[in-house]
């Protein structure tokens, strides 16, 4: 059983995802229980896998028993196990939110599970072409989910996302073609060896690197390539914005790391400094530009979307520095950001449903009207800024220490400045929530400012509040897992130990 775990992580949600569509023949409400059952199994498997990797080291799986360099290989090391566990937990948790908030059709739950399939597949695969296929499965499901909003603007945002996302994925595919032309193999471990033998200076290898990394940065939404992201996040239904903001870019960043460390390896970054510095430069521009754009937004969800652009800059900078400390820090920040950003989007959904407020100005004085939602929002916002003891602080601390040890001073300056900028836009919101006079909603506490959901039930369920509070608690509790994660990473990411 244990050796089948990696492939089960992909098979379980894709089979479960087909069931709601079939079940619509019988019942319109079958989607939610089926999705919950499937994701509970998925989470159990992911937990077991993470535990096995933590105790027994990397797990390999040859799909269909084809000999490894020719067949598709699934590889789970400490990093992929942590990402898979994150995917399962976030997806399962958000189902509690989706029950009241989300689009309730069976088709929605099918797409939801399809998205989990794509993300899990990207996390466990050890084959560059297989990664492309799962990247596109993730993309297709995400485009559909964004478009599932009630307003037509969601369709416009989804089409923009689709066109830009497809160009990104196609560039990645072109890069894979270059690698295939140079080495004749698609397996990541095999590629790493063959690329070293061919020499990192070969124009074909450099072009492949540029195309693959360029394509993936579109999916991660680094600065000049982020334009799809704010529209997609702001127009999607609340459940979907929380889900894709927590996971889609995160797993794309994971794929970028896999390409950097498992295919091209740290040696490539050392041998071709221009590649490393371009990546670090792009990340720094992303950090500053994302924060600056976030400060200037009036819509809270768009502000959070631009904040993601800046935070992913931070993560990519950590990985591009590529010392063990910086890589551990970037991983912690990657995982922590997923929990915090997903929680923030969920909290904006709760606040908007209770009060109708969606702009920075509209948040004035809401602290007492939506106590739980506002408190969680404030907590998560402070965690994102990097106030100890939250996970946001730990991740940034490791990245900064890594940059200082590597003596890359411009990055240190940008990292510290970014924390101030993050504080600038989040402190503004927290201040509005608790210390500003209520403006528009004064004296109308229960007189119908809140939109009433269908059938007269409360627009916010206990499950939705539990998700928001859970994210806030997790943002602090995750710190306890840092030593284990650090140890597993250092053991299972061997290229890092060579330094």
């Amino acid at each position: 059983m244990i050796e089948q775990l990696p492939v089960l992580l992909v098979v379980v949600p894709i089979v479960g995802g087909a069931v709601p569509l079939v079940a619509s023949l019988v019942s319109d409400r079958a989607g939610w229980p089926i999705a919950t059952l499937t994701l509970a199994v998925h989470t159990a498997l992911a937990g077991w896998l993470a535990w096995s990797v933590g105790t027994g080291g990397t797990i390999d799986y040859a799909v269909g028993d084809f000999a490894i360099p020719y067949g598709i290989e699934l590889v789970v090391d400490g990093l992929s196990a942590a990402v898979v566990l994150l995917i399962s937990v976030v997806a399962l948790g958000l189902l509690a939110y989706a029950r009241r908030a989300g689009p309730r059709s069976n088709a929605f739950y099918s797409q939801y599970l399809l998205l989990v399939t794509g993300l899990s597949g990207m996390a466990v695969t050890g084959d560059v072409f297989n990664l492309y296929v799962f990247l596109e499965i993730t993309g297709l499901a995400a485009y559909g989910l964004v478009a599932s909003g009630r307003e037509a603007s969601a369709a416009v945002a989804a089409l923009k996302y689709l066109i830009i996302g497809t160009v990104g994925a196609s560039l990645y595919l072109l890069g894979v073609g270059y690698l295939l032309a140079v080495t004749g193999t698609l397996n990541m471990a095999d590629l790493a060896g063959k690329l070293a033998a061919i020499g990192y200076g070969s124009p074909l290898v450099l072009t492949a690197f540029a195309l693959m990394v360029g394509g993936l940065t579109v999916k991660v939404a680094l600065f000049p390539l982020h334009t799809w992201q704010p529209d997609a996040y702001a127009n999607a239904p609340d459940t979907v914005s929380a889900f894709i903001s927590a996971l889609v870019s995160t797993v794309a960043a994971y794929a970028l790391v896999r390409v950097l460390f498992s295919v091209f390896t740290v040696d490539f970054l050392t041998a071709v400094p221009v590649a490393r510095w371009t990546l670090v430069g792009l990340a720094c521009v992303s950090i500053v530009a994302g924060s600056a754009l976030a400060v200037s937004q009036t819509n809270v969800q768009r502000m959070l979307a631009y904040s993601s652009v800046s935070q992913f800059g931070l993560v990519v900078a950590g990985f591009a520095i590529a010392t063990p400390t910086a890589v551990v820090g970037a991983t912690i920040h990657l995982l922590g950001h997923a929990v915090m950003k997903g929680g923030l989007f969920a909290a904006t959904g709760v606040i908007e449903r209770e009060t109708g407020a969606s702009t920075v100005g509209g948040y004035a004085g809401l602290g007492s009207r939506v106590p739980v939602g506002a408190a969680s929002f404030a907590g998560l916002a402070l965690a994102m800024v990097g106030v100890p003891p939250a996970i946001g602080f730990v991740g940034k601390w490791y990245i900064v220490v890594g940059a200082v040890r590597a003596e890359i001073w411009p990055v240190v300056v940008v990292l510290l400045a970014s924390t101030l900028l993050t504080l600038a836009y989040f402190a503004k919101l927290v201040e509005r929530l608790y210390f500003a006079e209520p403006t528009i909603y004064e004296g109308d506490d229960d007189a119908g400012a809140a939109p009433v959901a269908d059938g007269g039930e409360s627009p916010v369920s206990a499950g939705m509040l539990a998700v928001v509070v859970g994210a806030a608690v997790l943002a602090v509790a995750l710190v306890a897992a840092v030593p284990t994660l650090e140890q597993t990473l250092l053991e299972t990411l061997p290229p890092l130990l060579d330094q």
Partner: protein
Amino acid sequence: MILDLLQTHYNYYAVVVLLGIGLYMLVDSDNLVKKVIGMNIFQTGIFLFFITLAFRAGGNPPVITEGGGPYVSPLPHVLILTAIVVGVSLTAVALALIIRIYSEYGTLDEETLKQLYYD
């Protein structure tokens, strides 16, 4: 020399031309359907690039018969079969979205749509 390159590498030039046309349509065309067609042409360029990689002078189709070699590489063909399926699904989703946009806004022109969208 240049004539030589032109004669031996014309398939790669076809790939570059297709990629260029596709990207140009994606960026420059205001019509959403034409953008999707541009996306398809761009992907087709990539497909042809893979197929052209598999070619081997004097190679036979990769069906093993007695004394049949040398064969062309079957791997890129298989990969592109998958990529074509992905491309078709993407086109289907894109066209479905375009139908939704047209029924709501009554236009396929990007400039008009931008004005409606941001009002």
